[in-house]
């Protein structure tokens, strides 16, 4: 489904701060996989996502998605097939527009943005129903600018928007990190439901080891641009948070942080 093949990435090349992160990094996600990725700061989690989405250029290697080589496609072209939810809730929505307007514009993804009217009354009930399923009471706030909603509510809308149209791959970039524990829990449940309902292939970066253990069928731990731990399927279900934490700590001690 998605394959990162022999990726090379060096930051600040040619300066004293030169840092080779990926040297021949490879990763493969199969259709229907829900991969959670953990690792300390600077381990390459977000860089990995940026390589997939095309937000940063790579020095070498190949990225393929659904059999198509997308290595040289710009970010916005890859986005046609990839949905992404960011850590910052304000990135995934347009703050000055209402929920209705946000959803209307997201639903048009993949089709031309021409001179047709953006919001149609016909879609209203459908959108309201989708929002009602979030169970956040947002169905009565359809005409309220998203900028006025709380971080969790915005993130829920962002999640809906990212998955509204058929996509091959979903990127969740620490999407619960900016939320309080209770809201994060709600967003994780919504995420899980959407991923299962739409049978999405997804990758989730998180700092919450419990989420990494509880959600998804695969788990990776990254350190210095290498996969240091990989658990799949049943093996993952058998992993406990304590076990993961002990690996995490041992790496941290080795690195001295």
């Amino acid at each position, binding site marked *: 489904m998605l394959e990162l093949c022999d990726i090379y990435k060096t930051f600040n090349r040619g300066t004293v701060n030169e840092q080779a992160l990926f040297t021949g990094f490879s990763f493969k996600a199969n259709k229907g996989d829900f991969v959670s990725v953990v690792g300390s700061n600077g381990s390459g989690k977000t860089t990995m996502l940026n390589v997939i989405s095309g937000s940063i250029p790579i020095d070498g290697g190949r990225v393929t998605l659904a059999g198509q080589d997308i290595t040289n496609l710009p970010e916005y072209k890859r986005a046609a097939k990839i949905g992404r939810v960011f850590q910052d809730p304000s990135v995934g929505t*347009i703050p000055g527009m209402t929920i209705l307007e946000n959803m209307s514009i997201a639903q048009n993804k993949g089709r031309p943005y021409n001179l047709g009217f953006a919001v149609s009354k016909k879609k209203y009930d459908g959108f309201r129903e989708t929002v009602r399923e979030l169970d956040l009471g947002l169905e009565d706030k359809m005409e309220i600018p998203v900028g006025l909603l709380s971080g969790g509510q915005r993130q829920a809308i962002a999640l809906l928007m990212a998955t509204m149209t058929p996509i091959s791959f979903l990127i969740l970039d620490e999407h619960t990190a900016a939320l309080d524990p209770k809201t994060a829990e709600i967003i994780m449940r919504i995420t899980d439901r959407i991923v299962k309902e739409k049978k999405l292939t997804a990758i989730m970066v998180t700092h919450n080891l419990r989420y990494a253990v509880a959600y998804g069928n695969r788990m990776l731990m990254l350190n210095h641009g290498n996969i240091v731990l990989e658990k799949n399927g049943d093996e993952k279900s058998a992993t406990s948070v304590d076990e993961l934490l002990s690996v995490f700590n041992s790496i941290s001690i080795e690195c001295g942080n």
Partner: protein
Amino acid sequence: MLFYGTTLYGIQTGLCFAVLALGLYISYSILDFPDLSVDGTFPLGGVIATILMLRLGLPPLAAVLLSFFAGVAAGLVTGYLHVRCRISKLLSGIIVMTAMLSVTLALTQLLTKNGYTTAIFSYRSENLKSLFSFASETSLGRGAKDYWIIAVLLVFVIFVKFAIDIFLKTKLGYMLRSTGDNERLVTSLGKDPGKYKILGISLANGLVAMSGALYSQFTLQYDNTSGSGKVVLALASVIIGIAVFSNIRFIKDTTAVIAGALIYSLCLNYLVLVDKNGIYLKLLNAAMFAIILIFNDRLSGLRGLRYKRKGAKRIKEGGSDA
């Protein structure tokens, strides 16, 4: 009587500049792009419209409408320099503004018979009819003509306002708004935000050029220096309009901007009453702009708080819009 005349003149110029302000509303307020090329595209519209009428014999209205495309072309250059060549917003505007100084000067050569370049070309010297000339002109008094000009301008401005309002409700218009509000989301939707920036800047400059053409028709002359200070004028109009009227829910941004242009233009014209020789006009102009900016910053914050206020009202009303 002098005050009355000044008021009428203020309204007339205000309406001419309203089109300019609507252009800046698109580039500055929607796209967050303070476009300095406006100082160059304003006279460009004037000279193009005048040439179209004088050399090709087009009717005034057609000349004004076609000048739009000249502005679009200049805007394309600004947009391309910023988006594709990665030159900063202000500098790409300055580059085009400077280039336009020569372009307009070269174009004025087409207006004079011997290729002699003048800074000012008078419509009267060539017996050119303007948008505001009408058949029985001589039989009507001065007063009637003033109101006729206001009526024609008002129709034109309202037409432009509704065109923008409708455009901003289309999918393309939404993408333009999204580009200004949250560029990364446009990327997420599989579109190149740069494309929408270029489009918006082009449309904005098209409107600016139309405003320049209207102004030429109104003053019955084309003046090569008419562009100077137009950015400040337009920005001030946009900011005043939105700061003053954004609290009133049923007033759209576009209407607020038109009102802002009228207020600013009237203020400028009243200043002329005080400063008769016009020496301190630009200084007062700048001071007024500074005061507006300081005031505006304290009161609202043009971009961020606007939707918050409107939204807060809706919440207070019980969110019953749904």
